[in-house]
């Protein structure tokens, strides 16, 4: 293997503890449970095929069929189950219950792998079947569940590992999936920051004002924000810098804690100030799992590979 290949393999397969995986599992379990609880009141109306001709599910699934036949959707799960003679509403509540159960099992750390695969499949099917109503949070939960499902489960912190004394084996594969999440987050923040930097109103703070005064994000009284308007340009520029600088400054040991703290503060502020609690939570979970639990800067220490 060439030196370059060895360096790439060393970077992509570091020996890592599975603390980050436990954090991702618990965080996503909580997120799935909160998703189920937040959707509970409109669950049947949203997914029922008996509602109006142009229901969100019908429109979304018709559009999905045009995209690809391989995208999971709710009708895949309902059609075979309907042969048992159960009513659609019963099946939909069963779907909701199984998704909730998989979220609870992930949080507790029981049957981690089947729970992760079930949560990923059911959450994806539900989100895709109402894709017209999807927003950023759904995508990030799907991303997190996708990595979790493929990662070496169960982690050593899970109840399952403690009860059945399952030995934690492949430390390098644990490191590989954390690297995948880390690299993915770097791409996400870089492009998000770049797109903001290319807009005029992030530099003068008007986009911050526009974001927090538009419904349904107008949680705070605009008068209060207007009184502190002199801070808006600084906030706008800071967000651009945090995001575009993320792939550079999150790796070195010296700047990592500053950048991670800044990103967590940014997502907490978005969650609180704009009422996007679930979005804020999933971003905090992904960041903590990727960069919060272990040392990611081995590769770049002193500009050399640390062995």
């Amino acid at each position, binding site marked *: 293997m060439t030196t370059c290949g060895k360096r790439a393999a060393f970077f992509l397969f570091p020996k890592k503890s599975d603390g980050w995986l436990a954090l991702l599992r618990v965080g996503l379990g909580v997120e799935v449970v909160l998703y189920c609880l937040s959707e509970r009141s409109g669950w049947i109306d949203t997914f029922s095929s008996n509602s109006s001709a142009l229901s969100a599910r019908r429109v979304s699934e018709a559009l999905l069929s045009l995209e690809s036949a391989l995208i999971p959707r709710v009708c895949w799960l309902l059609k075979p189950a309907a042969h048992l003679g159960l009513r659609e509403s019963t099946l939909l509540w069963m779907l909701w219950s199984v998704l909730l159960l998989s979220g609870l099992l992930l949080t507790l750390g029981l049957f981690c792998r089947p729970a992760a695969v079930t949560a990923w499949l059911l959450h994806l099917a539900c989100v895709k079947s109402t894709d017209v109503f999807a927003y950023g949070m759904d995508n990030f939960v799907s991303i997190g569940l996708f990595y979790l499902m493929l990662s070496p489960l169960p982690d050593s912190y899970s109840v399952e590992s403690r009860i059945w004394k399952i030995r934690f084996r492949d430390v390098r594969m644990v490191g590989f999936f954390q690297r995948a999440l880390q690299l993915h987050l770097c791409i*996400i923040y870089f492009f998000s920051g770049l797109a903001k930097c290319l807009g005029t109103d992030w530099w003068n703070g008007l986009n911050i004002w526009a974001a927090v005064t538009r419904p349904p994000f107008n949680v705070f009284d605009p008068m209060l924000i207007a009184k502190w308007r002199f801070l808006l340009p600084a906030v706008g520029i800071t967000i651009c810098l945090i995001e575009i600088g993320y792939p550079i400054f999150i790796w070195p040991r010296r700047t990592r804690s500053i950048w991670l703290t800044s990103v967590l503060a940014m997502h907490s502020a978005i969650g609180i100030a704009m009422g996007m609690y679930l979005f804020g939570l999933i971003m905090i979970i992904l960041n903590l799992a990727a960069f919060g639990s272990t040392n990611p800067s081995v590769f770049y220490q002193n500009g050399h590979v640390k062995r």
Partner: protein
Amino acid sequence: MRSRQLWIAALAMHLLLVLAVSCWDIVDLAARGRTLVPAPIASGARDFAHIMESMSPRQLHRSNLVRQTVIGYVHAAGIESPYSYFAPNVPPTLQVVFEIQHRDHHVSHKVPSARSATDQLRLSALIDRSVGEQGLWREVVLQMLGSSIWEDNPDAVEIRAIVASRTFPGPSEFLQGAQESYDFVCSYNFKFDTAQFENGHP
């Protein structure tokens, strides 16, 4: 060692798809003149956008296995959408109001309602994504929203969807007492029994 090479190849393909979706989004924003980039670069971005579009699996026939697999995979991994939230600028807020004409000739107004705060975010995202630009998708979304209004008002003979763009004053003007204003974007009249659409534009 071989399994590691396979994992590296899989990760490279995965991240390449993430990069492709993200790059396409930036190039598309620049090509449509929605960014700060100077006109010559925007023109170059338009050419590049055409090249990228020609390389997209969406150019393949719908039944093509490569297209089905790649698009299926990006959806399954949650990587089909770009990450330019509220960028390059926060889009104007669009508001939809339904004017309902009842059988007894009285007229009432309703806005699409949500059951929870999360539903409100979803509804807002849908309206922002689909109602801003003219086309079939806007009509489908308005009819979808209108059908739920019609279900709540079975005595409605006709429903008119009115779309307006909300302009909120800047912080300094707001402190001086300026109020939000609304500009008419479009309206659609529809009757559900005949599924008939008439649309009007400013």
